[in-house]
């Protein structure tokens, strides 16, 4: 599955590597686009425990 890997520069100057999520087309990601921190479930184990990851969505 194609995903968007990004280096996100937060407003306080920290660099974060994460996925840009919530795009219906990965090619819609644009350099310099404003993003907002979000979380998403990235898997569930046999006990039903969810694994949660963070990412960034279009702001």
């Amino acid at each position: 599955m194609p995903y968007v890997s990004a280096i996100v520069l937060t407003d306080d100057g920290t660099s974060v590597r994460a996925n840009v999520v919530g795009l219906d087309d990965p090619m819609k990601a644009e350099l310099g686009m404003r993003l907002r921190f979000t979380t998403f479930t990235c898997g569930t184990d046999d006990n039903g425990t969810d694994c949660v990851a963070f990412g960034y969505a279009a702001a």
Partner: protein
Amino acid sequence: MSDAVWVLGTSMTRFGRYPELDAVDLASRACMDALADGGVTIHDMDVMGAGTLFQSQTGMGQRVQKQIGQTGIPVYNVTNACATGATAIRTVYLSIKAGEAQMGLAFGVEQMGKMGLLRGGAKAEEKVFEAAGRYGAVTGVDGILGTETMPGVFAQAGMEYACDYDGVGFEQFARVAYKNHQHSTLNPLAQYRKEFSMEEIMGSPVQSYPNTLLMCCPTGDGAAAVVLVSEERLRSMPAEVQKRAVKISASVLTSDPWVESGQVQPDVNTLTRNAAAQAYETAGIGPEDLDLVELHDCFATAELIHYDNLGLCEPGGAGEFIDSGGPFRDGRTPVNVSGGLISKGHPIGATGVANVYEVTTHLRGEAGDRQIEGAKVGLTHVIGLGSACGIHILEKAA
């Protein structure tokens, strides 16, 4: 007499797929041919540098010695990601510079079997999530928290350059691959020797945008070797041997200095710029003096940013440089006339020695159809993530 170190002999196997040959076969072939090319034998070697990545724990140097001659000399088995070959050369170079050797053999080899493009991709489908490891993670994060794999890292590095400067985009990156595939048609040692149109390159399957399949180096098998000699020993050799020797005017290795963002995206620029500055200073030349360059085009995006990192173009001017034909074989500074990693191939351990073979061959006037006429000075560059950068500057015998 100076204490310079010279390339006396060199050889490489054609890069490609060799399912019937193992790494020891390939390396032995390259070593024997390099020794013959230099008119010497294993008995003349005082030291060996053996570079290989995926079999780095198998004592590759000693395994090759069992094929070409176990003479009891020191063996340095080295690995440094994609800079492995350059590191193997460095160990022999340093031994000679230290006065502990007069002649040495360095080789790089890789047998990559059925590995495809080296990409990762974690799926969080463990049986039971349990925090483990350095970061207390419950699963691998590659593909979930961005990517650290090579296609992704070098795509990101290219996109960062495109973001910072005008005139750089998908087309400029694609043009790099167009050039290298075109160059490779003249190189009988290249893994692939086919030309592609810009449409074919830009239309091939996206691996990690903006790098499409035809903009990525393949995996493959191969080996390359060099015989190095001290100036003192060289001066005792016949005139015709001295004339074919090529001087190493600079041999540099760097790693990446700390930057804040380096924690999330390897900075492949600073360590290259640092290595280039050291190399130019040591050799007493500038980028404008280079007649040819063999640099590390693991991906088309990598080559483009290295034009800037190596000072081959104006700062920020890599797009203009490729568009104006600068790095083509008939341009201002021919880059990767061998076809580069993209078309010549990239058996990882071999690459940092194969580029020295290539430049040496041009400086000797022996590069056949792909010869850059009148070549006197060349530069080789490799960079491995982690990171390590190796640069050599080579000069024709006067």
